[in-house]
């Protein structure tokens, strides 16, 4: 009945479209070249003012695919009209303008042929898909928006536009005026500010707000110095160096490190790993290189030695595989621990990466292979068993290896690096969260303090990042790129945590300027998924590493220890203290 009333009210007050901009395309994901054409509108309804984006009806007409490097071409061309409709419907939205907290606006580089884009960020921490204005201007939309809400550019980040909550800003301002003038002025000041009269001009207001912000910030810094973070806030890191990603390692370059018998020159191993660290691998090299990076093949092993051992490992695999395959239904009745593990594997295989073409469709044999690998791992490490998240680690391995035996032994190698994440007590996850918090405190104390003030400094909003090494945050191909970089063990252990720091650092203004609390932070971080640029993040993380290692004598000992830098490093390496880009000291 409530709905009836609602409908009645709506029919009396018709919706009024204030502005409708066609040719606004939604981008599906950061590495996607897919832009779904659609229309952006601002509508006044009886229930409020809404910003809406809908995909255009005619999908085939202007479904755009640019192909800068084209490796996603197959994903796109395989989409049927139904899938397109589905994609469009999935990202369509309608939001109350009062729920808008801020938006990021990106202008294309001059002459790049790109389009300006806007990404709306909601008060609950969620973000809409980025919208690209193919008519090249966002100003008519923003102008209209300002008819309902007040907007202000973030002082820290010119690309971030914040919705100003007039009431609270005015209140804050008047409070700060009270502080300055005693309480005598209260009667005059508050009404004049709150009433939005001409007495205080917009510019005057903005100037006052700026001053207020500055004063706040000074206060915050001041209290930091007095508080327990004294040591940290005093630590001035050197400026972050500007780095760049290098080209992916090519087959020719890779082979130049190889000796004639197929093993690798031990003298140059570090150099090879640094090359992979800085540029990743060409896709065609992965099948060969991942075996080495994951420890399935030894670097000093010749081709014939490896082939011999591989045959032996294949036998072991078949042996363990037949163990679980031969368990009969009757046995299962008295083998509950096995049945439990089996059912977990089955549940997860069915829903792992099913949107990736390699795993798409019913009766896909790759699902059987994935199942076999994971079940055999259960027999290999029955105590650990199968834990959710493992299928995320196994699926790219199968995609690259295309062979059960190779996938399995690569997976064993990968689990060597990550199995502690899956232990029952979760102690290793907690440890990493603590280390992450310490690192944020050093790299970005402002953010660390903010997180603490929002009771979010347990860092659990990064749980997914750390558990499955960003598998859920990046596309399948970007995940491959990120993982091979991490597997090099360069330039330091726990580089994963520096990647976390780099991403959080890039979100500082959004989190603080939007005043996100615990739930909003979690939601915002979750929503970054598929909208992160892997190359930018890797260079930022590397740059942070250089900042830290240049300050090693000032860093707390425990941080040097787990990043393995400086004199307190566990490593017996005694390298010179100078930290240039090419001098890496750790040996893993």
């Amino acid at each position, binding site marked *: 009945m409530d709905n009836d009333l609602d409908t009645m009210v709506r029919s009396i007050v018709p919706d009024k479209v204030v502005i409708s901009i066609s040719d606004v395309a939604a981008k599906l994901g950061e590495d996607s070249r897919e832009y779904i054409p659609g229309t952006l509108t601002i509508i006044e309804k009886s229930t409020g003012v809404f910003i809406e984006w809908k995909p255009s009806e005619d999908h085939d007409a202007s479904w755009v695919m640019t192909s800068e490097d084209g490796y996603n071409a197959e994903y796109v061309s395989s989409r049927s009209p139904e899938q397109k409709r589905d994609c469009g419907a999935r990202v369509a939205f309608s939001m109350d303008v009062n729920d808008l907290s801020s938006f990021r606006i990106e202008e294309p580089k001059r002459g790049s042929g790109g389009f300006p884009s806007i990404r709306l960020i909601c008060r609950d921490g*969620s973000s809409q898909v980025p919208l690209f204005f193919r008519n090249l201007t966002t100003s008519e939309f923003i102008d209209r928006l300002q008819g309902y809400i007040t907007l202000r550019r973030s002082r820290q980040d010119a690309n971030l536009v914040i919705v100003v909550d007039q009431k609270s800003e005015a209140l804050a301002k008047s409070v700060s005026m009270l502080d300055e003038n005693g309480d005598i002025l209260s009667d005059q000041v508050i009404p004049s500010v709150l009433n939005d009269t001409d007495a205080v001009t917009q510019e005057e207001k903005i100037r006052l707000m700026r001053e207020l912000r500055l004063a706040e910030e000074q206060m915050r810094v001041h209290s930091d110095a007095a508080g327990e973070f004294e040591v940290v806030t005093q630590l001035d890191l050197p400026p972050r160096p500007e780095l760049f990603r290098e080209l992916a390692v090519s087959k020719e370059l890779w082979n130049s490190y190889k000796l004639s018998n197929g093993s690798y020159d031990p003298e140059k191993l570090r150099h090879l790993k640094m090359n992979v660290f800085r540029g990743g691998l060409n896709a065609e090299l992965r099948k060969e290189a991942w075996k080495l990076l994951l420890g399935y093949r030894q670097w000093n092993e010749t081709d014939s030695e490896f082939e011999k051992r591989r045959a032996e490992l294949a036998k072991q695999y078949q042996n363990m595989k037949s163990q679980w395959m031969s368990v009969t239904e009757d046995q299962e009745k008295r083998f509950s621990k096995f049945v439990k593990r089996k059912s977990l594997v089955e549940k997860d295989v069915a829903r792992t990466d099913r949107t990736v073409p390699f795993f798409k469709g019913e009766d896909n044999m790759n699902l059987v292979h994935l199942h076999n690998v994971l079940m055999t791992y259960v027999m290999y490490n029955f105590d650990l068993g199968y834990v959710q998240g493992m299928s995320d680690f196994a699926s790219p391995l199968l995609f690259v290896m295309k062979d059960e035996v190779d996938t399995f032994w690569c997976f064993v190698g990968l689990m060597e690096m990550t199995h502690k994440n899956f232990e029952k007590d*979760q102690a290793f996850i907690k440890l990493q969260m603590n280390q992450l918090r310490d690192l944020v405190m050093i790299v970005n104390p402002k953010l660390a303090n903010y997180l603490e003030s929002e009771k979010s400094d347990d860092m659990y909003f990064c749980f997914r990042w750390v558990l*499955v090494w960003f598998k859920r945050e990046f596309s399948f191909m970007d995940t491959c790129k990120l993982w091979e970089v991490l597997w090099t063990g360069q330039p330091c252990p726990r580089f994963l945590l520096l990647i976390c720091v780099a991403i959080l650092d890039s979100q500082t203004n959004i989190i603080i300027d939007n005043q996100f609390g615990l739930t909003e932070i979690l939601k915002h971080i979750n929503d970054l998924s598929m909208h992160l640029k892997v190359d930018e993040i890797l260079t930022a993380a590397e740059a942070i590493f250089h900042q830290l290692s240049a300050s090693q004598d000032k860093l707390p000992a425990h941080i040097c220890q787990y990043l393995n830098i400086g004199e307190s490093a566990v490593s017996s390496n005694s390298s010179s203290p100078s930290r240039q880009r090419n001098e890496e000291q750790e040996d893993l």
Partner: protein
Amino acid sequence: MAARNAGGAARPGGPNRTCQFKLVLLGESAVGKSSLVLRFVKGQFHEYQESTIGAAFLTQTVCLDDATIKFEIWDTAGQERYHSLAPMYYRGAQAAIVVYDITNQESFQKAKNWVKELQRQASPNIVMALAGNKADVANKRTVEYEEANAYAEDNALLFMETSAKTSMNVNDIFMAIAKKLPIGPAQGEPTGTVDMNQPQQQQKGSCCK
């Protein structure tokens, strides 16, 4: 320069009380927790919905006669291994949906454990609902409706069989919870209700469809 009133966009009609509640979904893995939320919040269903790692957070607003209820929904990972994280998510929750799969007897046992845990550990006034999901495959049913219904009655739980796939009873179970939540006036503060119309709280405009 543009004319506007201080609170935000103008709306006709008197202020409707908007209350915010935290709701958590618990239950064994792959029973359909994320799918129920996705259906309720976005009206969608993905056959191969990926497993949830950590927790996901979504919001949805529903309208009652006299109030607008904003659900802050925490969708959790189901596997036993991540059980230790659960208290973090149900702490302070005013509502919970414990989900099982009607084709999986064990998931029903797990659901009972969750109910027990919530009765012991969660807020004493928590509104609990039991959802027997995957009702669209009732031909493979191993948990009888009567059995679950009797259990729910004994434990004063709301109970419905649902299907995220067909959307059967999905909105209904959330609405039923909304109706049981205390939307009392501000006198006293029996619950953790946040009245969004209070000053300094963000004013909430949207209403359900």
